[in-house]
């Protein structure tokens, strides 16, 4: 009796704790969404407005269509710069660099796993490439890039994203490749397949779900990268996180509603993708430290 009761209390406690955290997780996201529907006098009001009243689509219209209201004064409507260029850039850069990094990273990982391409020490040094914060190299980098003509170029920023993603790509994919039995490749080899074909046609398809997880994790990092994009871009390759920081005038303050309307567009696609492949994520994060 006491035992079942204790168990019940424990279960209730567990639900309470988990639910509390779930609320803490969800509330800020709710706040972004609700702010994006608020008229300007409710962006920052006291007491706080929890439900936009009346909800308005103005922020979305201003940001995504680029029209401003003609309301007072009778002046003509003029269009603002829309974030579609930044969206395009973010899509190309984040997805492109991530895809290439995962592809190349998995080839390296294969080499490491099967041919000891990199010693263990080198592997850890590779991880360091990621761990030295970009802020410490970003100044000479921008100077160097300006001489190479790589400032404000998709290639320049893309290469940086590629390089900084590579360590995670190698480490994560290696943990999956390690789990592929060698016999499979040997069989392919016997059948006369080249090493490259073995990698691309036999090994990588076998670790599909691992690749998906790796891709997703690196995509998160590249999609939200801020500092490199801020400094290496001018007009052509501005990405969404940088675009997001523009809603502030020095003497006028921040346009929270418009910013939220853009935030929704930046954040939710990633959340949706992430939720779709959440099962794969857990496996990818073990870095070969967890055996099953």
């Amino acid at each position, binding site marked *: 009796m006491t035992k079942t009761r204790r168990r019940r209390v424990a279960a209730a406690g567990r639900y309470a704790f988990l639910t509390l955290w779930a609320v803490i997780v969800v509330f800020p996201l709710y706040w972004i969404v609700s702010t994006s529907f608020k008229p300007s*006098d409710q962006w920052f009001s*006291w007491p706080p407005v929890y439900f936009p009243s009346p909800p308005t689509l103005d922020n979305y219209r201003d940001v995504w269509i680029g029209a401003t209201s003609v309301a*007072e004064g009778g002046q003509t409507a003029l269009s603002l710069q829309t974030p579609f260029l930044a969206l395009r850039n973010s899509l190309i850069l984040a997805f492109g660099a991530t895809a290439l990094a995962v592809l190349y990273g998995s080839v390296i990982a294969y080499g490491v796993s099967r041919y000891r391409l990199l010693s263990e020490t080198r592997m850890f040094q590779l991880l360091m490439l990621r761990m030295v914060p970009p802020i410490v190299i970003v100044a000479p980098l921008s100077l160097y890039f300006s001489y190479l003509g790589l400032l404000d170029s998709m290639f320049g920023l893309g290469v940086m994203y590629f390089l900084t993603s590579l360590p995670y790509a190698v480490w994560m994919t290696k943990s999956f490749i390690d789990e592929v039995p060698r016999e499979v490749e040997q069989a392919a080899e016997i059948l006369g397949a080249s090493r490259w074909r073995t990698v691309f046609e036999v090994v990588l398809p076998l670790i599909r779900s691992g690749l998906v997880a790796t891709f997703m994790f690196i995509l998160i990092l590249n999609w939200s990268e801020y500092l490199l994009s801020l400094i290496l871009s*001018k*007009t052509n390759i*501005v990405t969404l996180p940088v675009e997001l920081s523009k809603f502030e005038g020095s003497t006028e303050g921040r346009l929270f509603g418009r910013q939220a309307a853009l935030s929704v567009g930046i954040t939710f696609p990633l959340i949706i993708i992430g939720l779709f492949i959440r099962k794969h994520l857990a496996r990818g994060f073990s870095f070969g430290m967890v055996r099953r």
Partner: protein
Amino acid sequence: MTGQSLHRRRVLQGGLGLAALGALPLGGGALAAEEGDTIIAAAKGIGKTELKAIMWSNYFVPMKGPIEEFEKATGIAITGIKDLSTPTIPQAAMAEALTRSPDFDIVHVGSEMIPSLVSAGYLEPLDEYMHKANYKMDAVGDYANLATYGGKTYGIITDGNIFVHQLRKDLFEDADNKKRFEDKFGKPLAYPKNWDDDFQQMKFFHNPEKGIYGSGNLRSRGFGYVWFLMYLYSFGGFPFDPDMKPTVSSDAGKKAIAVYLRDKEVAFPDSPSWGTSQMIPHIAAGDVYSCQYWGGLIKLQENPAKSKTAGKWIYGAVPGGEANGKPLYRAAGMPVVVLTVNKNSPRKAAAAYMACWLGTEKASSQIVTDRVNTFNDAWTRKEMTDPRVLEAYTPGGVKAIQANLQVAAPNIFLTGNQEFVDVLDKNLGQGYLGQLKADEVLKQIDEDFAKVVKRIGTAKLKKDYETYATIMPKATQPS
């Protein structure tokens, strides 16, 4: 009360009527049309040019109309902008300057960046173009001087940022309050002439329990130093002597820091981290008795659709300090946002004429009266009587702007401005939080300033000093 609001409505209707007529070439008047024509004539030979600018989109949008007009006449247009929030533009501009990049033709930036950008070899002097185009910046008072450096003009003003003092009319004119004030201090409640009057009133009305805070002034990183410099100037102080020795720990400095720090008694407890983003909504919502603020705020808080305090403000001259026994008035005129032209751009002539065009009476009045993107503020002499401006800022607001423009004091107008500002930010911030004592703050500022001066070069900065000293306003008080 009713008489005044009636008056306001009449002005409003008049303004609307004129705005509707704005499409007709009536707005400008004879001189402006001439002015524009000469610019077009000067720029016509250049041909089709696509310019790129570093500019905040919310500043850019109201310029689109005038830009299209100029494009029709000359083929020159701004076709792309690097859309950055204004606080990040100095960084972007300096980064461009360091690489001598020709990528951008126009940079829209606070004029305090002019010395640094010129020293880094980035800016083109505009006098020659202005001369050819027969264009002159027709600003109120000496305000246009804030866009010059070493005797040359480097920027065309688009946004006349100037501090205006404002206080709550409803509280100020309330008979009961007037009586209480007089009983308490033995003098009538009158518009504050100096910082002590101002503080006395803020303290009198400061009542957080009722949701009224005395002060809406800013004290956070990136903002607070503007107030400090204003106080310093108004006590006759100056951050350096002609030999570029830092002189912040002077008598003037001591008075300034005292005014700066005592604001804490009447400020929001959040003021150490509040910038405009947080303060503006509070001011507009009616939580503040008085403050000095950029004139542009008037447009927002007098707009009943966006503010609860429309019609509830009195605007006027920023309170003064005292130097040599005489009152001295200084209103912060920073940042004076100007269009500058990249020296390294092959399209610099086109860019210069575009800048001149946007600085004409006709274009400017269109830009500063946009009712949606209200970020550019009136600055030309003519605008002060333009019905659209009067309607947006209210007649009282325009009068106050006009008064303060005459005593507009600049940011630290030296090469390395951002470094000097960082020194102020850091030390004033620690002082306001109580981590440094008032005289320690001043001493530390002087020490840190000296280091910056040494590194940038005393000889160079001595030359800059001459400009800095000459662009200080001549008038000691608004006429």
